[in-house]
């Protein structure tokens, strides 16, 4: 009861922001009258636990998923996304796109100031985008590669011209590539900015303290532009504290003892406990990321032979891996790379639904080189992954496939797979991107940097190119699914086995906290019940 209630409020609150952001450009929806049931309270504080420490606060240099926890509190981006994956206005209205799909015109909000007092305007957008796409060591080069030029049309209008039409372009502006920072503060920060990004953003909260490995404190931005559906000025909270707590048990204990009021990382084994705890509210929705086994398909390696990959696909029992492995049922079984919240998801796509040991044996026999033996590289010291690997090992053994586990340091595994020198398979998760392109292109297209399996299939390349130029969503979905049939079943690039879950565990007093498929917390709508 309480759960549905708080969810409803959260949903409408977000809708309200959407409306506020549109500022009259969209006709008002039913949300306007919805939030009358509950009166949100101002003030209070929430401490949120994430599962590891951040590496970097500069969106340009950030390479870790965890970094984004802080960024969503302190920075605004040009556009944002709803829990359903729809892109909504934020610092800008939704852009108008030229007929050839190459020119995007952004109409910006005019009531936004950065925490350092400087004004957000078209020049600022240009400076940020150019910084991300032209700085040599920027990690955003890949995402912004389609951009040809950024032009200030007038103080509140920016035009971005692309080299070629790119369907996923807008979706990258939701996240780090679209986050807007104050030029003054970034430049003053110099090399220390990556850890002391004070006052650089325009977001609902202002970073006040950063203690590595311990906590990050934020205070309310009283001048934030966002409003809730009922007209409430957001954010509600006075302070937000984000703490990195690496150990799952310590994290959970902190939540249960009330030192922490929310977290997005609950270990599978603890989920039954928190569901049974009446002082806590546990939400779980399907995420956008996936977990996969990455074979090395380069010539000369075992898995250059695609039938071996198909055999492993057939021999493994995904349901058991999910239910009895470290996830303990959290998440969902996956067969391909599109998660349920992607528009390209096809619920009927279930190849290898049940393990088929006989078929797996037959495929190996067909190759005619004797029994299949390969090595799985596992990051050393990672108990949960080790549990998964050993369970998989026992499943494959039933089909006479010998999978030897080899533990290496994480860096070595990354290096080996980047150079396509890993002997058998590795285990890789992907945090996911909201556009299906972000879960597909870089991993399956010939020669792309994240194509760790050294996969190359002309048909897949052609299909993926078309998904980028096509603008119609139904058309794109069709193309994505055609590609998926090839890179999952006919000529596999990877073995996809599970989707992440987006978890959110909160104390009962915490209201308005909504679970997003990207697993990142949004604090602006959160309030504390007195």
């Amino acid at each position, binding site marked *: 009861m309480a759960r549905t209630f708080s969810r409803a409020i959260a949903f409408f609150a977000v809708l309200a922001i959407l409306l506020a952001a549109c500022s009259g450009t969209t006709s008002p929806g039913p949300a306007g009258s919805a939030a009358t049931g509950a009166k949100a309270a101002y003030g209070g504080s929430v401490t949120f636990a994430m599962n590891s420490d951040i590496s970097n606060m500069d969106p340009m240099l950030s390479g870790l998923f965890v970094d984004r926890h802080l960024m969503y509190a302190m920075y605004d981006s040009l556009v944002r996304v709803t829990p359903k994956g729809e892109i909504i206005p934020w610092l800008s209205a939704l852009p108008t796109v030229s007929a050839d799909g190459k020119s995007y015109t952004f109409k910006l909000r005019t009531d936004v100031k950065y925490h350092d007092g400087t004004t957000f305007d078209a020049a600022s957008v240009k400076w940020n985008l150019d910084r991300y796409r032209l700085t*040599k060591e920027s990690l955003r*080069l890949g995402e912004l590669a389609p951009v040809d030029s950024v032009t200030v049309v007038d103080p509140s209008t920016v035009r971005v011209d692309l080299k070629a039409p790119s369907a996923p372009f807008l979706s990258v502006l939701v996240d780090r590539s679209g986050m807007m920072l104050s030029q003054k503060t970034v430049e003053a920060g110099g090399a220390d900015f990556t850890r002391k990004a004070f006052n650089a953003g325009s977001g609902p909260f202002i970073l006040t303290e950063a203690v590595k490995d311990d906590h990050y404190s934020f205070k309310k931005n009283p001048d934030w532009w966002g409003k809730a559906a009922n007209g409430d000025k957001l954010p509600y909270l006075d302070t937000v504290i984000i703490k990195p707590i690496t150990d799952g048990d310590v994290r959970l204990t902190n939540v249960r003892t009330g030192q922490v009021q929310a977290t997005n990382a609950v270990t599978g084994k603890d989920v039954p406990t928190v569901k049974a705890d009446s002082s806590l509210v546990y939400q779980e929705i399907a995420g956008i990321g996936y977990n996969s086994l990455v074979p090395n398909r380069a010539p000369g390696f075992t898995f250059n032979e695609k039938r071996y990959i198909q055999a492993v696909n057939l021999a493994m029992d995904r349901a058991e891996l999910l239910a009895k492995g470290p996830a303990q049922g959290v998440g969902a079984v996956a067969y391909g790379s599109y998660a349920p919240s992607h528009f390209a998801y096809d619920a009927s796509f279930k190849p290898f639904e049940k393990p088929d040991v006989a078929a797996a044996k037959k495929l190996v026999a067909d190759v005619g080189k004797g029994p299949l033996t390969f090595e799985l590289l596992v990051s050393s010291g990672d108990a949960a992954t080790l549990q998964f690997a050993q369970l998989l090992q026992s499943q494959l053994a039933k089909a006479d496939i010998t999978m030897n586990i080899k533990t290496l340091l994480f860096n070595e595994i990354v290096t080996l797979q980047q150079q396509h020198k890993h002997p058998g398979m590795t285990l890789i998760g992907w945090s996911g991107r909201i556009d299906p392109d972000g879960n597909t292109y870089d991993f399956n297209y010939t020669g792309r940097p994240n194509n760790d399996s050294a996969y190359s299939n002309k048909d897949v390349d052609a299909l993926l190119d078309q998904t980028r130029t096509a603008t119609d969503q139904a058309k794109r979905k069709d193309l994505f699914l055609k590609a998926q049939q090839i890179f999952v079943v006919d000529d596999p690039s990877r073995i996809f086995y599970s989707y992440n879950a987006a978890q959110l565990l909160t104390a009962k007093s915490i209201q308005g906290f909504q679970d997003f498929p990207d697993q990142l917390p949004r604090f602006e709508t959160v309030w504390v019940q007195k």
Partner: protein
Amino acid sequence: MTTYILRRLLLMIPVALLVTVGIFIIIRIAPGDPVLTYAGEDRDPATIAAVRAELGLDQPLPVQYAAWLSRAVQGDLGRSFQTKQRVVEAITERIPVTLELGLAAIFISVTLALLIGTLSAIKRNSFVDLLTTSITLAGVSFPNFYLGLLLILLFAYVIPGNLLPPGGWTPLSTDVGDNLRRLILPAITVATASLAVNLRQVRSSLLDVFGQDYVRTARAKGLRERAVVTRHALKNALIPVVTIIGIQIGAIIEGAIITETIFFIPGIGRLAVQAIPSQDYPIVQGVVLVSALSFMLSTLAVDVLYAFLDPRISFGGSEA
């Protein structure tokens, strides 16, 4: 004496150089490429090349070392690959944490060692003595990471009411009470291993002193046993104990590594344990240098103190 100290300090220079060269080579032998990890999820080849150049990793090894050394002697240990934080800053902001943990552990361990050790030396071959010997052996034999886990299990989970937290840290400056609550379990964990060593030292040096002439004289003079122990024996027996404390202070970082890892304490030991596998070269080099220096300096301090306390020792001879 001054000459001796100067000579020792001079000898430290080549040793410190050897240490830095050693760790420089060892961490670079490791097969992974740190740049790939720090480039994160989006690994564009151009980006990777730019990051590599920025970190100076495209230079030949001797050039890299020379560059590091020339900056190190000026007090600049570079920046962390991962967080871009200055290494000097990363270390100095963790020193108070590790130092607090280490000193608390030494305090616990020495206090207990003095109490139990003295008792067992006085009542030699008694039940107390037997108990002491057992504690000593058990203490050195118990894997301290398992002890840490057991303490967490007991105080954070088994005993209801969340008596003590299972890990994490609050700085002393933020909240003294919470800081102490979080200090207890890790300090006991670290103290257990050194308790055994200290206990053995107190007991055997007391027994040694009891056999000496001046104690027998004191006893013959009719001094009460308590006076003999506290005024004469204990004072002399303390000399080796002082040295052991000194050595333990020098080895605080070492002793805290595993414990900080188990209890998620943001100290220097944990910094090192995280930095080695992730190949954050500047951090590893910085931590090793600092910890080697602190070890050598405290060893020297102990030797000097020893000479000060025990006039029988002079610095003429060879340092065997």
